[in-house]
């Protein structure tokens, strides 16, 4: 166990010793500030205010830091975090193979499965870490701008429209962190799986993003409305339902069970591909 922890910490050190890792965090912070700036524009504020008031609620209470935090996360995560996770996870194995450091690792008496397990764990950690960072910084930015107040959630594609008081809202916001992380880990797992095959890191990233875009497009074609639930991105959106007045636990458990199964399958597929590969320059 001690050895395993040392190996995990070695992988983490590699990840966090790279400037690129921190550039990612910086990019998110910058993007959040841009979103916050846009949300402060009068026209945007007026629109949000109108939606809140049309529902019969007080905009002064619900146009709060918590609401802004949620909006920042909603806009940031799907666009930027998926992209960034695909970039990082696409690198995890294939970049090391390309650079030659994987060959150095494979000169050691460690199984290929263990190497992948270490990298998978670090990718999971990174996904959770990045999501936590995005959600907390969004919340802090929201608080700094608009202070404490209720939470207003409006996600029309998922059919979520809800108002919560501050504490229940904050609780749901925090509960969304692990759920969103697990959803986004599917992006990580997909890029990770592809990077185990004999391909360039950029190819793993591009294929992952292409698959996600294709899934999103198919999901939104009206003819496939009845099949909507089977699409990956639909299952990944389950986290938003934690903001529903009555959380649809059954649907969420089912979706997350699917995601866990898909992620485990992706890992196994990647592992098998990695085991069978020949490593040569």
């Amino acid at each position, binding site marked *: 166990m001690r050895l395993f922890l040392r190996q995990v910490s070695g992988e983490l050190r590699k990840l966090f*010793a790279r400037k690129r890792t921190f550039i990612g965090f910086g990019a998110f912070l910058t993007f959040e500030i841009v979103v916050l700036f846009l949300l402060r524009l009068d026209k945007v504020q007026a629109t949000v205010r109108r939606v809140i008031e049309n529902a019969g609620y007080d905009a002064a209470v619900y146009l709060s830091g918590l609401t802004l935090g949620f909006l920042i996360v909603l806009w940031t995560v799907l666009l930027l975090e998926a992209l960034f996770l695909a970039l990082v996870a696409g690198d995890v194995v294939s970049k090391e193979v390309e650079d030659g450091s994987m060959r*150095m690792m494979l000169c050691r*008496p460690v199984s290929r499965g263990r190497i992948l397990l270490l990298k998978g764990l670090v990718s999971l950690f990174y996904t959770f870490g990045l999501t936590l960072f995005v959600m907390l910084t969004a919340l802090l930015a929201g608080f700094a701008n608009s202070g404490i107040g209720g939470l207003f959630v409006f996600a029309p594609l998922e059919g979520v429209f809800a108002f919560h008081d501050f504490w229940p809202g904050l609780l749901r916001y925090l509960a969304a962190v692990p759920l969103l992380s697990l959803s986004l880990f599917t992006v990580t797992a997909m890029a990770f799986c592809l990077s185990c095959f004999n391909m360039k890191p950029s190819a793993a990233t591009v294929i992952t993003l292409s698959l996600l875009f294709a899934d999103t497009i198919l999901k939104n074609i009206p003819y496939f409305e009845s099949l909507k639930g089977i699409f990956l991105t639909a299952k990944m959106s389950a986290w938003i339902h934690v903001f529903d007045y009555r959380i649809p636990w059954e649907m969420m458990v089912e979706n997350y069970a699917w995601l866990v199964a898909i992620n485990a399958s992706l890992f196994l597929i990647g592992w098998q591909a990695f085991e069978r590969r020949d490593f040569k320059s």
Partner: protein
Amino acid sequence: MVRLDHLSKSFRGRPALSGLSLEIQRGEIFGLLGHNGAGKSTTFGLMLGHLHPDSGEAFIAGHSVQRERAKAISRVGAIFEAPAFYEYMSGWHNLQFFVSLSGIVPDERLMEVVKLVRLEKRIHDPVRAYSHGMRQRLALAQALLPNPEFVLLDEPTEGLDPEGIQEMREMIRRLRDERGLTVMLSSHLLSEIERLCDRVAILHQGRMIFCGSWKGGEPHWRLDLDDAAKAAPVLEKLGVVSGAHHLVSLRPGGDMADVVAALVHAGVRVRGVEVVQATLEDFYMSHLVP
């Protein structure tokens, strides 16, 4: 220590190695020679489990690399192809990381090896600031950790200056002499192999065409004669084979004194006789160029 048993490997139908079998004894320094594409790296890759053989098996310390890889390479250190470190990390952190994949090794042991390769002053600098020679020394340090019995060195002197080459050579020899390490190395510098290795294997187009010691063969002789044409029938009669650069070799059991006497008797003036021991380069070329 090492046994390769009919190892074969092909890539996309093109054979890279065909039925390679050889054995390396404990404490031996063994050289693997061959042109580019002869199968040297494929052999190393198969021995380390980087490649899956089409057939055959490699055994290290009695364990099959293909069936129990972790056990087989638990006492193996390697520099395989261009060493690739994490440029943004220090040499020390690189060593710590790679060594952690072998087991828990105390920092004192790490420092001992760092001192052995004389990197202690720069070990905490990022690897991107290292010269080529320092990278090679770091590569050697990671190959010597934690405590290998068998070291595979693929082109360990590549890109080093003459001083670095000499340092590396002395270090390898010292490791064998003082620590009893078994070493298998490949290099394009035949003079280095010649100075270091007890035995060599020559690979050509994936096949082993020689394995053994190139030393101990019949020596060549350089004869300085005043009339080569007059000497030719005499030499032919005595079974002396003429080669390039005025070199000749005797038939088994032949004596140069008899040759000189016969030449003098035939009226050929012999101005000088010199023994020329064949170099590994001569030996290598004689096997590759029929």
